[in-house]
């Protein structure tokens, strides 16, 4: 696989090193002179000096071939947006992966059709929420292209699902339960699985249909 990485900071450098270790062809572009020099020391000709949002810099890196993936990993979201747009729309790169530094900018990536995005802050927040049990519904994974998401919910005391088997719930087609975590042990959700208050349920559903799930699994929402 041929990958171009825009931005050789911590993220870009580690992705470069990992991909090279897996035997892939990688070019990493960095515009800070000092940082470029240390990249060049480690990666030799695979490091390029320049602004990855400039067309001629991208072209020198080989974007015209085009690469299989472009990773926009700079510390500036506006730069990552432009790198991704140029890659996809100007050079026909099939996949652009963008780093989102400020999660508030995620809406701009969505607006401009750049997906998938990776936001360290959002991921850390999701993990924190995962550890905080009082959160009612936790978004664990978004599969944007598939228009699905995986969420975790704890069944509330007295919820409509409390004490019922899954097959009794008449789940809508837009929603499926994946697994049940009870007292530290997980099991795959099947029709005969009985649900109880306190169970941690993983579910897959279409974004926006969370209400259906909450009505069934959370107390006092029906």
């Amino acid at each position, binding site marked *: 696989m041929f990958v171009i990485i825009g931005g050789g900071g911590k993220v870009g450098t580690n992705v470069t090193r990992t991909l090279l270790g897996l035997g892939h062809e990688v070019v990493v572009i960095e515009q800070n002179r000092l940082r470029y020099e240390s990249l060049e020391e480690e990666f030799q000709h695979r490091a390029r000096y320049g602004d990855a*949002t*400039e*067309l*001629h810099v991208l072209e020198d890196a080989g974007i015209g071939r085009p690469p299989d993936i472009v990773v926009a990993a700079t510390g*500036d*979201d*506006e*730069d990552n*947006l*432009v790198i991704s747009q*140029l890659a996809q*729309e*100007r050079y026909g790169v099939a996949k652009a992966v963008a780093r989102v530094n400020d999660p*508030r*900018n995620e*809406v*701009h990536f969505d*607006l*401009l059709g750049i997906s998938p995005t990776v936001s360290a802050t959002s991921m850390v927040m999701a993990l924190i929420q995962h550890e905080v049990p009082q959160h009612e519904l936790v978004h664990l994974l978004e599969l944007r292209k598939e228009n699905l998401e995986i969420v975790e919910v704890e069944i509330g005391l007295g919820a409509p699902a409390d004490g019922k088997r899954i097959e009794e719930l008449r789940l809508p087609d837009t929603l499926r339960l994946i697994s049940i975590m009870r007292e530290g042990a997980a099991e795959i959700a099947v029709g005969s699985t009985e649900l109880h208050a306190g169970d941690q349920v993983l579910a897959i559903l279409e974004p926006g249909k969370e209400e259906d799930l909450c009505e069934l699994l959370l107390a006092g929402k029906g």
Partner: protein
Amino acid sequence: MKAIVVGCGRVGSALAKVLHASGWEVAAVDESEEALRRLGERWPGEFHLGHGMDTAMLEAAGIQDADAVVVATDGDNTNIVVAQVAKLRYEVPSVAARIHDPARAKFYANRGFDIVSPTSAAIDQLTEWVSGIEVRA
């Protein structure tokens, strides 16, 4: 008539003043307090401190019912993104962005917002000037 000027350097602040003088209601936006100095002590319009990509700040500046947005920060990529956000997310009727790099200016042409490229303008003017030079015999 409401205009938002994002980026109040030399160009943005001068433009904000011109717009205000010609009867526009103007909200100026900049990341730095210093921009207020360039707008002048008696700047009568609004001023919002923040980055142009901050939608909460843009909304506080009234982007939802703005008739025009001008984006002239010192970053080409910021200008490119904010112009697209103004056009696509907020459907502002008239949007203009300054883009220094002629290659990016060309790529983002014809996307529903106007592009002012000072570099291209200078190249064109100087090219014209060069072609008018009378060469000594």
